[in-house]
């Protein structure tokens, strides 16, 4: 098993540093061949109050790869995704009763982890694009301003870099100070992606980012995901088999709160081991 590549220090909980990112000089960059595990989910049981939503989920997600979560509605894809940046903390009565989620070996539900710091490292793009009713510029700089960045040159630079990163720069560079709500649906979603990458997270969670978009806007976002995986680890929830097949390296299939199968995307779609997976990807149920 390949773990996070930090010298000799054991990466298990013991010496957990308080910040999650440790940019290790000389760490192997995304080598197309081998991928290292970034997120490790083990034996996870998740509850909404008394209702169990996830059952014994075990999953290792690769760094600088795109992982897709698929499965019929209500199977717990969003729930698992929202566990990864602790957005579920905001819902009353939610609890992880068993198991753990580790990012680079650090238990993100550990007592010393601040969910605010975690969310700076683990960004999220929502199903319904939610640009803030502020200017495009203010949307992008929101995260940095929250962190106390005031320097105009720095902010300008980040705005351009993020918008370019989200393939939106050319379309909006002349209207940075107009409201983000004036953009088209697809542009709004890319604005939200730009806003997320502006705070330079390591991981980007996307919950059905294209479900409200037309095919052309969808294609643009998919292209973007392709480009982003050079820098970010991306986890995407989708209801579209084609989308999962097109953008992801690995795919996890969930059913009724359980992880049924997890493998390379090509395996899941061409040669699934589990008959339920086979039935779902071939469109026979779900």
């Amino acid at each position: 098993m390949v773990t996070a590549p930090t010298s000799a220090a054991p990466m298990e909980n013991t010496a957990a540093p308080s910040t999650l990112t440790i940019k290790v000089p000389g760490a192997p960059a995304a080598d197309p061949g081998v991928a290292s595990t970034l997120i490790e989910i083990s034996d996870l049981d998740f509850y909404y109050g008394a209702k169990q939503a996830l059952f014994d989920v075990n999953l290792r997600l690769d760094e600088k790869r795109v992982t897709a979560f698929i499965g019929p509605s209500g199977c717990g894809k969003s729930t698992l995704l929202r566990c990864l940046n602790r957005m579920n903390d905001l819902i009353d009565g939610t609890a992880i009763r068993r198991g753990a989620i580790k990012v680079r070996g650090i238990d993100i539900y550990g007592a010393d982890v601040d969910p605010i710091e975690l969310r700076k490292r683990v960004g999220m793009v929502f199903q319904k694009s939610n640009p803030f009713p502020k200017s495009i510029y203010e949307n992008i700089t929101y995260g940095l301003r929250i962190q106390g960045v005031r320097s105009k040159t720095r902010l300008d630079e980040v705005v351009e870099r993020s918008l370019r990163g989200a393939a939106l720069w050319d379309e909006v560079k002349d209207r940075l100070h107009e409201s983000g709500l004036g953009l088209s649906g697809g542009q709004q979603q890319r604005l939200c992606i730009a806003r997320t990458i502006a705070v330079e997270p390591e991981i980007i969670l996307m919950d059905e980012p294209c479900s409200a978009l037309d095919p052309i806007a969808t294609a643009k976002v998919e292209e973007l995901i392709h480009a982003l995986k050079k820098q970010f680890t991306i986890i995407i929830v989708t209801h579209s088999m084609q989308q999962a097949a097109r953008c992801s390296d690995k795919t996890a299939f969930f059913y009724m709160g359980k992880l049924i199968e997890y493998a390379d995307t090509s395996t899941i779609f061409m040669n699934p081991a589990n008959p339920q997976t086979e039935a779902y990807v071939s469109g026979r149920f779900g």
Partner: protein
Amino acid sequence: MNPVQHPFTARKNRSRALEKLTFWLFRLATYLVLACGFFVFGNIFIKGAGTVFKKSFPFVNTVFLTEAPESLYVFTYQGTKMELGDRDYRAFRAAEEARAKAAGQPVPQFNAESYVYSAGGIFPCIVGTVLLVVGSMAIALVLGVCAAIYLNEYARDGRFIRFVRLSILNLAGVPSIVFGLFGFGLFVLFAPRLGVAPDPEKWHFRLWPLHQYVNFVGWGVSLISGWFTLAFMVLPVIITASEEALKSVPRGFREGSLALGATKWQTIRKNVLPYALPGILTSSILGIARVAGETAPIMFTAAFVVRDKLPWEGLDHWTDFFFQGVMALPYHIYVVSSKIPQNEYTARVQYGTAFVFLFLVAVIALASILLRNRLRKRYQW
């Protein structure tokens, strides 16, 4: 008669007649309400305009709007009927008596009838009401918005929170005189003051070991007592409305902000409250009319029947500003109405005061509406 019958031919039957009847009943009820409104406003407007406006330049009764109330003296002197305010009457009388004395004539008799507060103006009342409204709304908004944020954003729904909500609802139904007496007990008689020596003759609550600095001597009949009493009276309205406004801000704004690593308070301050503010202001406008118009809460806590000094005159220390009573428009109407005898002179003052009061509330409300609209434009969503 049209011989052609088809499935949709209109028929006369009971349910159609009933339909028409109910329609007219509802319509009449609406018209009745409208007529009452027109009558009340029209009456005050027409009669009040007689006091507030003049036929000659400058067309506005400046005395009424800029001076303090005085007694009115009505008398017949050398065959002419005269109506003079207190100061003018004294001056006139002194001058006449001096003239008669100089001419060796007998001292003239005046036999004037006096009517309290029927001359002069209502300027101190206008000032007082504006101060009361602004101060109490500021307090109510700050407290109300804080409470609404706590209830809506932080508190976890439970038995305690449900109890709090129920209490707030009940508070909305408490009669204003009860608020007045509550304010009298808590603020006028009991509230703590810094650096004011207690009255050795009276018993005061002592908060050991702070009793050297803080004494529970009460705030007296004062602006600040009135502010808090009025603020408590409108708090339920403001809290409920602020909660509604906060609820109407989409979840996506909150989640998006939190997902970028903002804390809850940063999220509320930057990405929730600004968008809720127009809604909060809209509902506060109703609160303004209530605060400005209620007499019962201020009659024991803040209002003076008459006060010669304006609030900013003759202050020993700037904090004294908060601890002085004021005159107020609704209380003035009440005071003048309870004077005997009632006649055309008192009626004139009452109508004029009511007119100015309505106008003032309209102006304050309009200002809030303009502010609301500006905010709405700025934080459009």
